[in-house]
């Protein structure tokens, strides 16, 4: 469904990604692991069109999307929940969700989106008239994910959804990620939290200094001592 081939991208003159390839199959859940500064966020931004690709290609359903602008890529059903959430802090929870449905073609579609998001995150229904900036960290992350779910994305890219959250909140968010995936949305999950991702993902890719250092299923990666110690920090 998503196919990234030899992707090179970066900021200014220096390339951060130096030829990255990965695939996310339809309905799959792929983990994207790697230490601080490995290039996970850069990869997500290049895929969603926030950052220009210098060479290589990104295909979504076989269609090249690396020349499209971010707002066009969204229309294809490839949604990006960015690191740091990037909510609209001075808009209410409801307005943030409405922005998630900005491209909706009917009121019914917007209503369906609200129903779905409120089922997944009941707290967002309760808080609908609060400003997004006034929510707790966990609620903000839920809102960021909910906003991307409004129009039934076909592939969801999540960038460090667990960062800075308490373990119980992380449990809740990962449970929702599992559920969204079970309902048919493919997921690319960038995280530093290797243990949790390996338990959830069908396969994972480990980035290191802008290159793919290792890839495989959780079991394969955990069976490799070098990978465990060097890249995953597990002993």
């Amino acid at each position, binding site marked *: 469904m998503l196919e990234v081939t030899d992707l090179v991208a970066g900021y200014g003159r220096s390339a951060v990604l130096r030829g990255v390839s990965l695939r996310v199959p339809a309905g799959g859940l792929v983990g994207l692991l790697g230490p601080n500064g490995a290039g996970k966020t850069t990869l997500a931004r290049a895929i969603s*069109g926030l950052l220009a690709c210098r060479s290589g290609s990104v295909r979504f359903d076989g269609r090249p999307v690396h020349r499209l602008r971010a*707002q066009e890529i969204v229309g294809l059903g490839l949604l990006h929940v960015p690191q740091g959430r*990037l909510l609209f802090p001075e808009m209410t929870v409801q307005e943030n969700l409405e922005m998630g449905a*900005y491209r909706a073609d009917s009121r019914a579609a917007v209503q369906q989106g609200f129903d779905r998001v409120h089922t997944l995150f009941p707290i967002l229904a309760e808080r609908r008239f609060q400003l997004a900036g006034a929510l707790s960290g966990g609620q903000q992350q839920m809102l960021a994910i909910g*906003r991307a779910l409004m129009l039934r994305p076909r592939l969801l890219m999540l960038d460090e959804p667990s960062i800075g959250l308490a373990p119980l909140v992380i449990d809740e968010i990962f449970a929702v990620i599992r559920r969204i995936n079970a309902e048919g949305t493919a997921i690319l999950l960038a995280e530093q939290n290797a243990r949790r991702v390996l338990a959830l993902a069908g396969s994972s890719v480990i980035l290191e200094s802008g290159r793919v250092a290792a890839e495989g299923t959780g079991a394969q990666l955990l069976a490799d001592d070098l990978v465990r110690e060097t890249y995953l920090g597990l002993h």
Partner: protein
Amino acid sequence: MDVSTALQLLFSGLSIGAIYALVALALVIPFKASGVLNFGQGQMVTLGAYIALTLSQAGLPYYAVVPLTLLIAGLAGMAIERVFIRRLVRAPEFTIVIATFALGLMVQDAIRLHWQDNDFPLPVPFSTDPWRFGSVRVNPVFVWIVLATVVLVVVLAAFFRHSRAGKAMRAVSQNQEAARLMGISVEGVFSATWAIGTAIGALAGILFAPVTGINPGIGDLIIKAFVAAVIGGFSSLPGAVVGGLALGEIETFSGALAGSTLKNVSAFVVLILMLLVRPYGLFGTAGARRV
């Protein structure tokens, strides 16, 4: 000062304040969305007045001149954003400041070349004889200014609060990248806010024209609009309105009490006091952006 004089001053302060408020809104709306402050906004007011003059001299009635002028000015603003500003968004801030400033001067000089420094009247479709309420005299032109401003502010508030496009503009002003990730065309929002800004500036020009006459200097009130916007915090639309009205009243009353010299400096006294006491204005927050 007796009550009727005070009421009369209050009302003329309100109407001049309404003009300041409009031009302050015209500055703040595109600034909030695109981060670019249009230093040529004063000349957009002038341009609006001359578009109205041209349409009026072509024989169109006032009620057709007003919407047509707003439309033409809006399209001009959109064109300016597309042709000049968009290419400069990544340029250093000072470059953008100079560019908008230069553009304004070019517009003003073009107007001066064609119409010279004459004063033209803009006819209004109602009698300008003052209305009397007891000993208070009210100029219908001022009533029209206040009325039109109130309507515009209410329409704008509803637009930003309830419409899809208005919410998209707020979204862009709060987080551009996130707005893109929602599928919002940030470039489209930039042009739209420039269109709205120049259209509001043109409305101010039309409303102000019967008071001062149309001449190439009509847009000089931009200085007052800057002060009004600063009083309001520069990032708040209600702030721009309140700042404009407050400035109008302060000027009018200081002029009446202490003569016209004080009237002219009062705006700057207020500005300096404001910056000393509340650097972010009445409604502002510390997170002000470019320029």
